[in-house]
Each structure stands twice: as C-alpha cells, then as structure tokens.
C-alpha cells in the first residue's frame, strides 16, 4: 500500500547547519498492517509519518501511496487524497476549541464531496457511540478529559472511512489506564475494519498491539 524508496528529509536550519531527520529510508507497508514505529525523541519517526502522509515533501527519494507519488499530484488532488484515504491522530490536542465534540468529528466532511457530507452526521454519531462518548456530543473540548479528547480525535480520523490511519504518539499525554483503553480501541478498529494503521510511539511496550514493528534511531530504521 505504501512504499518509501530511499527517502530522506533534511531540515536546513542555516546554510551550514542541517538536520537529517530521515536518511535514505526504504520501507514497504502492506494493506491491513498495524505497523508500530518506535524510537526515542528526535529519531525521525514523526518525520517518517509526515512523509508517509504527504504532509512534508521528501528531500530525496519517493513516497508512493498505492503506487502513486504523492508529490506528483496537485494541491487539490493531494488534499482530496488525504481527506478520503487518510485519517490522522496527532500527538498534540488537535480538536478545535470553539466546536463541540460532534462538530469536531464532522470537521473532515467540510472538505468532502456531497454524498459523504450527507452521511457524515449519522456516521459521526455512530463513531462517537463506538468510542463511548455518545453522551458527550455537545461537549466542548475543554469539558472533556485528555483521554476523552483523544477518543474524539480517533472518531474524527475514522469519519471518512479512511484506508490508512496514521497516529503520532496518540497516548503520550495519557495515564497508563487511558493509554491501554486507547490502544485497545486501535486494536479493535484494526480488527473490525482491517484498516492499515501506522502508529508512532516512543514506548516499546506498545509494540504488542501491532502486527509489525520497526525501530528508528538517528533517522534510520534499525531492524
């Protein structure tokens, strides 16, 4: 499903000072996989996830999603592809504070085609029920705990029935019990829908949730 072919990403801080976040990385992720990428902070795992998502342009190499080079597409095509095929869960709180939980879940439908828009509301409610927050539809993010907010983010990521779910440290700010709940939810989503999941974490304890894991250090995949 995803192929990374000798992909590198370099951030130039100044003319002389460059940070090589990802180096010559080649990776293939198959449809239906639950890949867990581990690594310490600064190992390049988030950059790798952003490269997979097409959120950052590789300095060299190619990223192919279903055989298509993301960066050969126009901005509109890239945006539509992200909207229809990819769900994102970020490390930081990414709910819009001025919207209710339900409105936040429905947010991706703004950029969707009409029939997806129409189906959005019942599906959003169904997902909120799945993540156990059907009674919090009208709650604002500030009225939800960190764990509840992350569940809303998961529901939002799944709204457009994506083929690929990308999660960047989704449990880093959560306590142990909530972390377990969220990871169980990922496992359940994977089992139920067969969706491809790529999850980035610094915690090696979470690798057991995935079907495969890789470890990154210094911008390179180690195993």
């Amino acid at each position: 499903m995803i192929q990374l072919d000798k992909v590198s990403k370099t951030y130039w801080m100044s003319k002389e000072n460059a940070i090589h976040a990802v180096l010559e990385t080649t990776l293939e992720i198959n449809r239906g996989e639950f890949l867990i990428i581990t690594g310490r902070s600064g190992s390049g795992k988030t950059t790798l996830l952003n490269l997979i998502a097409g959120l950052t342009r590789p300095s060299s190499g190619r990223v192919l999603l279903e055989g298509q080079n993301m960066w050969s597409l126009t901005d509109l095509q890239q945006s539509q592809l992200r909207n229809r095929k990819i769900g994102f869960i970020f490390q930081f709180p990414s709910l819009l504070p001025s919207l209710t939980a339900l409105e936040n879940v429905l947010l991706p439908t703004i950029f969707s085609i009409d029939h997806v828009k129409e189906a959005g509301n019942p599906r959003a409610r169904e997902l909120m029920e799945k993540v156990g927050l059907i009674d919090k539809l009208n709650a604002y993010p500030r009225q939800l705990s960190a764990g509840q907010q992350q569940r809303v983010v998961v529901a939002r990521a799944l709204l457009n029935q994506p083929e690929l779910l990308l999660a960047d440290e989704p449990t880093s700010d959560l306590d142990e019990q909530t972390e377990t709940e969220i990871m169980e939810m990922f496992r359940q989503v994977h089992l139920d829908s067969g969706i491809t999941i790529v999850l980035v974490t610094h915690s090696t304890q979470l690798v057991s949730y995935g079907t495969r894991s890789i470890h990154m250090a210094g911008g390179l995949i180690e195993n």
Partner: protein
Amino acid sequence: MAICAFLVAGFAIAIMLILRGTENSLRLANDRLGADIIVVPEGTTTKVETALLMGNPTEVWMPESNLAKIAAIPGVAAATPQLYLSTLNNASCCSVASMFLVAYDPETDFAIEPWLESTIGRGLSLGEAVGGTYVFVPEGEQNIKIYGYFVTLKANIEPTGTGLDQSMFLTFETAKDIARLSPELALQPLIIPEDSISSVLVRLAPGVDPMSISAEIIRQVPGVTPITSPNMFQAYRQQMNGLLASILLVLGITLVLSGLMIGLVFSMAANERRRELGVLRAMGATRNFVLRSLLLEASILALEGGLAGITFTVLVIFLFRNLIMRSFGFPFLLPDPGLLLIEISVGLLLALVCVTLAAMIPAYRISHMEPALAMRE
C-alpha cells in the same frame, strides 16, 4: 486589526464628509444668494465672503450710485442692492448674540422675495424678518429685539451649513427704521451711511458671459470688485484644496502604517493558529481553502472595525458639526442620506481593501506552508 480598520474607515469617512459637506455648503450658499455676480467694495471680498459663509458680521460700504451704473451695463438683467449690518454683541437692547443682518430692497430683489412668495405668500412688511435655520425668537418672548426694536420672525430659511443659517434678512425699510429709532432705544445707534449700500447682486441675461460683464463693471464702476458665481468663495476653495492635499498626505501615511500594522498583527494571529491550520490541511483543506478562510476572517474584522469607525465618526461629526465648522473656519452641511450611504460604502470598501491587502502576504505564506511544518512548535 479591527482597530486599524476602525481608524482607516473612520478617517476616510471624516475626510469625505467634511470635504463634501463643505463643498455642498458652498454650493448651497451660492444658490441661496441667487446672483450671477456680487459686486462689493474693492478690497472687501474676503470680509464679505467670510460674513456670508461664517456669519461673522461685517459692515462694508460703497456709493448707492454704483447700483444705477451696474444696472445700466448691457447684459445685466437685474441688479439689487443689499446692506450688511450687525447686531450689538451682548447688549441688553439686543435679544440675540452678535448676528449678521442682510437688508434687501423688495422693489428690485430677486434672491429673497421669490422664496418669500413661495413660503409665506407675500413679501416682508415693516418690522418683519426671515432668519436662517438657527435664528429663533428667544424663549418667553414674542419677537426678536434688535437695537431695542422688535422684529417679528416670519419664517426660517432651510439650512445651508453656512453663516446664512445664523443671519437675518429684513427689508431696507425695516433696517432704516431700526437705524432711525436706535439712538433712543439702543446703547449704540445703528448707523447706515447716507446714500450707501454694501453690495449689488447682479443677475445676467441668458447667454451672457459673466467674465465679460465683470470686466465691464471694473471698467465702468471704479472702487468695486465683482465676484462671479463660479469664483464665489474662491479663497475658501483654495484653502480647502490646500487642506485637502495635507489631509490626503496624512490619509496616505495612515493607510501605509495601518497596512503594515495589520500585516504584522495578522501574521502574529495566524502564526498562533498555525497548528490548527496544519490540522485542517491534514484533514483535506486545500491551500486555497486556508487562504480564503484567513482572508474572509480578515474581511469580517475589517467590516466590523470599519462599521464601528464609520458609525463613531458620523456620530461625532453629526453631533459636533457646529463646533467643527467654527474650529476649522469652514462652512459645513451634512450630505443627504443617499450620498451619505455612498460615502459610507466607500469608507468600508477602503477599510476592506486595506485590511485584505495587508493580510494577503501573511495569509499566503501560512496557507502555502507545508502542513507538517505548520504543525511543528
């Protein structure tokens, strides 16, 4: 950002209102005088214009015989004399403050009499007067007392925004009666020099060139200055043009500074929401969507600020128009609602364009940023 829009729109509407109001006022004053040429004693042009525009009383004199000479010039259809007088300031014999009085000759007048005919159906009799908009009978009294003489106010002329609004019009007969009785009734007498008049209003025959008649007046009547209608209040117009140049310079500087300020503030505000915008891009928002959203937000703020600025400015100008008129030494009349609406729209448009242009660069920069970079701390 809204404050910048407030300033831009407020400033723009203030300039438009004051300039347009002044121009409007000058035009109306010209129309009210109803003459193609006003002939005044030589060297008194500014004094007479100031009296007519600002209502500052003045007394200027020339021989009455000038009237016949002017009336005899071929091309002059009508000529009528006027006397410019004033009341006494803060005197117990006058129930009004210092006021500009214009006495006219009902026999030859073509400026005030027609208006009187259409308003009260007849001319003024002895002891009667008409006043500008702001002339009124003092509370508790029946008449206006001038030099101890009781004058009946018969009507008020519609506003012109000039000194005519604070002036009073009466006939030669009434003026001379006041002058006759004033030594007995007033602290000081009203003096009208024998065989003297202050000005001659001239109406030309159709198709006659005012400039050639002016030249003829200068040639045939020594000691006078003819002011043609288009050149009336020329000193004020020149002063206004000078003021306009300065105001436009200040407006230009304000626009540039506001633009820079808006760009900076917008850049900071959008930067704070970079992560939010990055999340939207990750969810499928195109660069154009983000750009349009940011510009729409800027436009809404511009409209809000602009409307507030315009409302505030119009209110201030409306409430303090007389104070502004006196402070700047310019006549002023609020434009009619239709024109006011156009000026408000122009002010809003200016605020909108200024804010949108200033927000364009930061909005473009942020919307074209890589989503991953936008989401980074």
